[in-house]
């Protein structure tokens, strides 16, 4: 239930998210390599990313022109430029740590920081529980069929296959 709520609240990344193109790029009128040009973007041009379809993202350029560019050619503000904001994880953990005993275990909010991983003791009961959720090969196959997923023959890239 809580997850569902958070899913609804999670920001939809591609709704007018500020981005830059990593190289000079031709915008396309349609999300396809052979589509007609819709304008030219210089390297590092700033755009607003609007929606993604397959390997293409529809963007709005500074001058107002719209078109489709390769999604792999877009970078969002986070990694390069300083971006404000936090997902709130730190605050959650701080709240947990400020419990009466001053330890984070009292409120049950824990997590996966390096410290917690280093000091973790094995939890055999949770492991058994996890193993109880296992899906069988057949079960997974009918699950896939229900989603209209059909298995494809796709080769690994040659250099990775060794």
């Amino acid at each position: 239930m809580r997850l569902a709520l958070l899913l609804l609240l999670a920001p939809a990344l591609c709704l007018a998210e500020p981005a830059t193109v990593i190289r000079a790029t031709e915008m396309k009128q349609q999300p396809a390599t052979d589509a007609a040009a819709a304008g030219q973007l210089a390297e590092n041009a700033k755009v607003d990313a609007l929606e993604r379809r397959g390997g293409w993202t529809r963007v709005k350029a500074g001058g107002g022109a719209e078109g489709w560019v390769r999604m792999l050619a877009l970078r969002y503000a986070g990694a390069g430029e300083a971006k404000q904001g936090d997902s709130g994880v730190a605050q959650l953990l701080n709240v947990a740590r400020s419990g009466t005993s001053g330890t984070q275990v009292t409120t049950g909010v824990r997590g996966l920081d390096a410290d917690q991983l280093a000091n973790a003791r094995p939890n055999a009961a949770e492991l058994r529980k996890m193993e109880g959720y296992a899906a069988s090969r057949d079960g997974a196959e009918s699950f896939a069929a229900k989603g209209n997923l059909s298995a494809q023959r796709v080769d690994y890239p040659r250099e990775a296959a060794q």
Partner: protein
Amino acid sequence: MTRVLALCLLLAALPAQAQFNLNRLLDSAKNIGKATQEIGEKEEIEIGRDMAARLLGAAPLMANDGVQRYVNHVGRWLASQTERPDLPWRFGVLEAPQLNAFATPGGHIFITRGLLERMRNESELAGVLAHEIAHVLKKHHLQAIQKGARMELAGAALSTLARQDRNTPSREKLLAAGTELFSRGLDKSDELEADRLGVVIAARGGYDAYGLPSVLQTLQAMNPEDSGVALMFKTHPAPGERLGALERMQPTLDAYAGQPQLADRFTGAARR
């Protein structure tokens, strides 16, 4: 080869008056040899289960049967498309707000609630699980543990000689080395390989192959100082670099871009 080299190192370190220690020395060399041998599948699975139990000690499973079963179905279907379909594949969602995913040898795979909440459809989940499955297929963690164990054992053998007591390699040490990988991370080349193979495995499963790249884009848009991604960013190449490296997979990505994303099933399963 490594064994011979280790033995040479030991002999070079052997003081002339300490030749009575030769038996002990040979024992140590044997132990180093043992650690360099290929670890069998049974032991691989056991080490992985031990590592998984540790991880679950840091964060328990998210208390939602429906979500756990759903993730197991997606993951098991993907694993069936690989060269190791019969490993005991197990998947779990960890009750942790951070964004991360983990694999342990032999087929235990984890994703955090924090990462799941940032996903928009099943093809994104499939992309991340396929990346983790690739680590298991390629035994990336196992190799890193063995590499670490070899170096430590070579050192331990020498100090054993000096202190004249026995210090054999233990399962505990392998496990400690494995657990350390959760916070130290794998080699960058292992991560980029898992990205490439993950794209292929998701496509084999019939999913929109862009699931993994679009999760990477979500991560790339986040503030790297954000406490929710600090550990993941520390243990992986930057998402922007991973996206760049995936450009060589563009033909595969595009050939399978039209396959289902299953956004409705994803949100439905999460709502249960």
